[in-house]
């Protein structure tokens, strides 16, 4: 009986070569969303809440993609929250205090220069920590624990603790909000472009397999995958577009543009938020790095067997150092998103983020033993964590209880994952 039922299901997954772990996470996410949706009378599933959820997830999701590689190489980075703090301060001071004096107030390039300075600072911090870990052989746990304290102190030192505000108007777009969204038409364009990429990817993959005479997926499986992926993209676009600008913001905008406000108020769609698009772009780039480049291959080989990688001629130390440089860069990008969203740089920014980032990576299926992990999984993990937190706030769970639930879920997720892994290896 059970085998009869299981067989078509098994065949389906085998044919689509779907990643069961990612699929499981999507299922968990669906349960969480539906549960909170019911508990909040649909408020959780409103376009507005889902849009906000996507923006709140962006910063942690960006860092989680890098944490995957760090953990895959059997290391850990406890300093990301503090690195976010110090790079955020550097980005803030650059645009609010240094650049206006040099190139004038509200220069169109301010955001780019500030972001670049932040990324360089993040890369340098990552390089320093990576050097100590890889070449001086101090355990990553200790180096980044030191970094957790040191960079938080450095964040304070930048302005002696003073909060820097406001941010440049272009820079603010990286934080989302009505101005930091791409609007309805562009959102549809992006969604359609994505669908085209997905279909092209499936076709190209099929052609490559045929070229090398590898077994092909059945056509129906390819079609199912294409339909599922494309509907997910189009669905996200529809939700983002269903969230409209607040009436008063829209009215003010119409006034500034000299537009007439139609009967019943002006309806302007938010569309995808800029930070969310940034996070998705980071996710795509990091997936590419992890799976398609030599560097990514080495990262996983080192995680599987550091000695073997070294004996195979991989320069393992340099690879590890590069992983930490990458992590620093991602922390700086996350810092840009969170300072832009807050419209201020504070020295407490990113406090405790290291825990959420590590939790996101681990919930997303990254094994602390090394060698196993997926960028997409970590981003989903970040979304799961954020959904839990936002949902509990929405439903009115007390703050201490919220933390207890999040902690419990983390432990539970890793336990379930270890069960899955044991079964998979047998």
């Amino acid at each position, binding site marked *: 009986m059970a085998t009869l039922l299981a067989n078509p299901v098994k065949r389906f997954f085998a044919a689509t070569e779907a990643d069961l772990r990612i699929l499981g996470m999507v299922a968990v996410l669906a349960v969480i969303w539906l549960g909170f949706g019911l508990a909040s009378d649909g408020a959780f599933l409103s376009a507005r809440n889902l849009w906000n959820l996507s923006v709140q997830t962006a910063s942690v999701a960006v860092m989680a993609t890098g944490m995957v590689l760090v953990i895959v190489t059997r290391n850990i980075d406890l300093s990301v929250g503090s690195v976010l703090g110090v790079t955020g301060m550097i980005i803030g001071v650059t645009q609010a205090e240094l650049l206006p004096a040099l190139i004038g107030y509200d220069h169109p390039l301010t955001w780019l220069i500030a972001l670049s300075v932040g990324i360089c600072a993040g890369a340098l911090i990552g390089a320093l920590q990576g050097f100590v870990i890889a070449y001086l052989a101090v355990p990553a746990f200790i180096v980044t624990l030191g970094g957790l304290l040191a960079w938080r102190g450095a964040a304070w030192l930048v302005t002696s603790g003073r909060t820097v505000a406001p941010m440049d108007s272009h820079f603010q777009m990286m934080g989302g909000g009505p101005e930091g969204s791409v609007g309805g038409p562009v959102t549809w364009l992006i969604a359609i472009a994505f669908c085209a990429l997905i279909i092209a990817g499936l076709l190209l993959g099929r052609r490559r397999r045929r070229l*090398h005479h590898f077994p092909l997926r059945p056509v129906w499986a390819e079609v199912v995958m294409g339909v599922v992926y494309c509907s997910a993209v189009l669905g996200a676009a529809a939700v983002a577009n269903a969230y409209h600008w607040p009436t008063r913001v829209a009215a003010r905008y119409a006034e500034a543009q000299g537009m007439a406000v139609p009967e019943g108020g002006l309806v302007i769609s938010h569309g995808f938020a800029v930070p969310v698009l940034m996070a998705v772009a980071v996710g795509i780039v990091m997936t590419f790095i992890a799976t398609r480049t*030599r560097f990514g291959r080495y990262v*996983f*080989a*080192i995680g599987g*067997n550091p000695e073997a*990688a070294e004996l*195979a*001629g991989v320069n393992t130390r340099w690879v590890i150092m590069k992983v930490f440089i990458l992590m620093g860069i991602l922390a700086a990008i996350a810092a840009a998103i969170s300072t832009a969203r807050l419209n201020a740089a504070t020295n407490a920014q990113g406090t405790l983020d290291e825990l959420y980032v590590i939790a996101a990576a681990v919930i997303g299926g990254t094994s602390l033993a090394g060698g196993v992990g997926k960028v997409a999984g970590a981003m989903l993990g970040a979304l799961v964590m954020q959904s839990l937190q936002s949902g509990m706030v929405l439903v009115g769970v007390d703050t201490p209880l919220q933390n207890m639930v999040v902690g419990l879920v983390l432990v539970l997720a890793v336990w379930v994952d270890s069960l899955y892994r044991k079964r998979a290896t047998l």
Partner: protein
Amino acid sequence: MTNSNQVPLVAMDNISIAFGGIKAVDDVSIDLYPGEVVGLLGHNGAGKSTLIKILSGAYQKQGGEIRINGQPVTINNPRDAKALGIETIYQTLALADNVDAAANLFLGRELRTAWGTLDDAAMEAACREVMGRLNPNFKRFKDPVRALSGGQRQSVAIARALYFNARILIMDEPTAALGPEETAQVSQLIQNLKQQGIGIFLISHDIHDVFDLSDRVSVMKNGQLVGTAPVNAVTKDDVLGMIILGKCPVAATAGPGALVEESA
């Protein structure tokens, strides 16, 4: 096979290395000619693996000289050794368990597309080709190496050493994890490689293996070379005497580690 007029493929002269005051390899000299198999024998801890790891770049020698075809070379890491055509099959196999056979085969030397990205399809195709020759029963190209049997893992490790046209092959206990049939395959493989002019260092503590496959044997004891002898000039008992007592038979060239007898 051994020809004193010929330049040796590999000559390791007076090699020494010490770990924390213990001389793991002490003034050892061995050599290897093209198309020759030299068996390296000794107890656990005699220093054979350490000596060979100096040649493969895993350790750096503290004294002595390595020459390839008569030219002195510097080997600081495994990359240097591979650039000189020295490939090693380690006793531990040194495979990354979490990636598939093709990824292991090309680890450190990945094939790339014109865009600089990994050409996984080409690597898998090459892997299928070389594994097809080495182990036609091998079918699990998509699975991580962890999921493979001991013999299959061994064939991946051997394929890795062969694919890149090694001139010098080091095999550290190549048959330790294998069944009788697979051991026979490895023996056949060694014969083929010899005919191609590849020089092989065979490390083993199974004296029968070494006698069947080698042209010469070098025996180490306590980090020192007891002696080197052509296999057809000594008996297994002679060699056992070298391993256990350090007693060098007449037919062998004695090294610094040979037992010195008063009568001699």
